């Protein structure tokens, strides 16, 4: 793998999971949604979009998406394999160290199995 690919891969994964972590932070700040009436949901969405982290999250997810498109224009789709599989592990580390989530052994095992399964699905 050439340096250009490695850098793009890192950007796709880090911006992608970083964006999702920022969106998660936003929604924790909004607080647990307890009722699902449409007018209540609209208020929740409105509140989320007034939090800076939401915009940071969307910006990072957009960067990740367009880097992926860019990479796909010069590499074939096999590059998507490490991206999708690694994201689960990186995401779990992000949840632990950036959001303070507690990941017990059973959850780690689950994450690793999901990661392996995604690898199999992509090469299958």
């Amino acid at each position, binding site marked *: 793998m050439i340096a250009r690919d490695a850098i793009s891969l890192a950007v796709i994964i880090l911006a992608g999971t970083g964006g999702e972590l920022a969106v998660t932070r936003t929604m*924790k700040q909004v*607080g647990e949604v307890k009722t699902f009436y449409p007018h209540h949901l609209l208020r929740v969405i409105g509140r989320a979009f007034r939090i800076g982290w939401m915009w940071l999250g969307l910006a990072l997810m957009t960067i990740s998406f367009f880097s992926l498109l860019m990479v796909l224009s010069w590499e074939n789709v096999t590059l998507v394999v490490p991206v999708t599989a690694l994201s689960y592990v990186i995401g779990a580390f992000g949840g632990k160290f950036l959001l303070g989530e507690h990941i017990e052994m059973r*959850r780690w095992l689950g994450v690793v199995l999901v990661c392996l399964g995604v690898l*199999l699905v992509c090469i299958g």
Partner: protein
Amino acid sequence: MSFRHRLHGKTIFLIALMAVFGALGDVLLRKGMEQVGAVSSLHPAALLSTFERTFRSGPIWLGISSLLLFFLAYLLVLSWADYSYVQPASATGYLFVAVLGYLLLGEVVPRMRWVGVLVICLGVLLVGGTPPRTTEEG
């Protein structure tokens, strides 16, 4: 009903919605783009015509609506559940993509892919056995 059970119920419900709408969106977009046809040239006129055909396609709009519902369910579930719970659990979407691709698009799903889907489901079962929320409220 205990606090933990209440969270488990609505978490599983929303993750199921995410998996179904995510997969449906994916399959509909693919079906739509199949109808639109491959992008044959990067000439502006050709791109414009592809763009126009894309946005006149029913499946494309259904796919986009599906993905919006997916994102709504995603936001809602993250208002209480851990990211490290939701992210792996939503990989159940791969199961629905395989099943929908097989049933709706008539795709042949290789055996290796079914094995992968099975391994994902085992992983999701393990993650699903942990409490959805491990951080403090507020």
